[in-house]
């Protein structure tokens, strides 16, 4: 299951980014990024802070709308496109229903219980009746090992537990792709393991994932495609060997500095 076709027979693309450019003011954060994510593939993006990796991730579910370039997802094209092109436009909200996202700061809704956090979008977006929505939500809390915490509020949970609820909140929508934006960076060191364990299981179950992380061990373990970004461009990409055997001096320098 873990063997995903990156170059085998007929890999099926799920997300394709084409020539993405994004600036915040005079800061040119993304300078022409191309990326194709295939079904079941695990993409790991790493690089120094400010390299644009989080912005790249947020472009995939259009929390950031690119200045130019396009996001292709599941047969539809989003974003302004490349100059002169006219593409059928999709609705960002529909795309987001099928792409899950896990944030560095968890971003659970603090005023409702863990169960309601997971059930909210089922009820309001998918319009599923409350008993059914709660049953599904509880099932997903069980999957991340938090069935006993379903009545707890986020403030009563540890960081690791909150992040697992956040993962359940995304998974319950049945996403085709899961995005992780430095999911363990805000956690106390002893809580990192439980979140990585859930992510590892998820990868093994065949979920398509794009993970921005500083956990190089995670990349070595599950990363089918590993991308080193710096200064808004992809400097180097490759298989699991990249962490031991990078070609680009900048990649080697970065890996040396964090290991």
């Amino acid at each position, binding site marked *: 299951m873990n063997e995903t076709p990156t170059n085998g027979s007929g890999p099926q693309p799920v997300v394709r980014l084409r020539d993405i450019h994004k600036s915040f003011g005079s800061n040119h954060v993304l300078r022409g990024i191309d990326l194709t994510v295939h079904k079941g593939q695990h993409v790991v993006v790493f690089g120094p802070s400010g390299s644009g990796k989080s912005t790249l991730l947020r472009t995939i579910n259009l*929390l950031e709308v690119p200045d130019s370039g396009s996001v292709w997802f599941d047969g539809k094209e989003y974003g302004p496109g490349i100059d002169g092109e006219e593409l059928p436009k999709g609705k960002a909200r529909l795309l987001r229903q099928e792409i899950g996202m896990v944030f560095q700061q968890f971003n659970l809704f603090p005023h409702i219980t863990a169960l309601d956090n997971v059930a909210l*979008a089922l009820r309001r977006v998918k319009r599923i009746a409350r008993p059914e929505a709660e049953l599904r939500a509880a099932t997903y809390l069980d999957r991340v090992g938090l069935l006993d915490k*379903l009545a707890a509020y986020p403030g009563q949970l540890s960081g690791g537990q909150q992040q697992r609820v956040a993962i359940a909140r995304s998974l319950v*929508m049945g996403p085709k792709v899961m995005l992780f934006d430095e999911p363990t960076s805000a956690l106390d060191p002893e809580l990192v393991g439980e979140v990585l364990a859930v992510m590892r299981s998820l990868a093994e179950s065949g979920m398509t994932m794009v993970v921005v992380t500083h956990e190089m061990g995670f990349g070595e373990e599950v990363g089918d495609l590993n991308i080193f970004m710096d200064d808004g461009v992809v400097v180097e990409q490759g298989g699991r060997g990249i962490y031991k055997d990078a070609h680009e001096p900048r990649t080697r320098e970065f890996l040396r500095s964090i290991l």
Partner: protein
Amino acid sequence: MSGVLAQATFRPEFIWDNRDIFLDGVWLTVRIALVAFALATALGLIVALLRMSKSWIVGPIMASYVNVFRAIPLLVFVLFVYYGVAIHFSFSISAIQAGVLALTLQYSAWLGEIFRGGIQAVPDGQRQAAMSVGMSRPQTFARVVMPQAGRIVTPPTGNMFIGMIKDSSLVYIIGVPELLRVSNLLANRTFRYFEVYLGTVIVYLILTTAVYFLFKYIERRFQLVDVLTSKVRSPFARRRAGQLRRLQEAVTAARDTESTVRLATE
């Protein structure tokens, strides 16, 4: 040394004997404060939302609205609205309506700023998380931003409500027979100034204390309590706890029969 008109003896029963007069005034004070506060809350929410508009023209206009209405002394504003505008331009509105209008406009400016602060205090990550699961902007506002902002603005809004009850006394100047006005008339007629204004003070104190306890109750209702582990046992919490336990049992039972992938073991 006492003044010529000062009463030699303090007669507390005078207050009770004139309770009907006080009650008439209180009743009008309460109605004015409630109506003006309800209108100001609705208008304040609109002011807050427009003030955060990205349009280059709407935001600055609402900022001026807030600045203007906060800058004018309320007593002056009450006079201006009634004598200055309503009477001068022959608008057929009563003194009560003019007073409510003046209070509403000023309080909408203050409340608008409180609401804007509350809405902006909700971290942006909350909106992003709501949008990332496909919620629309109105859904995100109603289900995620508003409930959190509501908790933040409740204490200052309670202060404003107390302020409204007190400030409603200023409409006495245009002849509205609310608590202060009827007190003035009674005192001028009977010369029992101490008893009358003591009565007035006590009634305001009772009103504002009631509001204080009301908002304390609302804040307590906001407490986030895990119904499964807490000792709080309201009938509602007990019923919900029962539902959740059955939910846990159902999921645990299905766990053994279905082959759903578990991502964590605990």
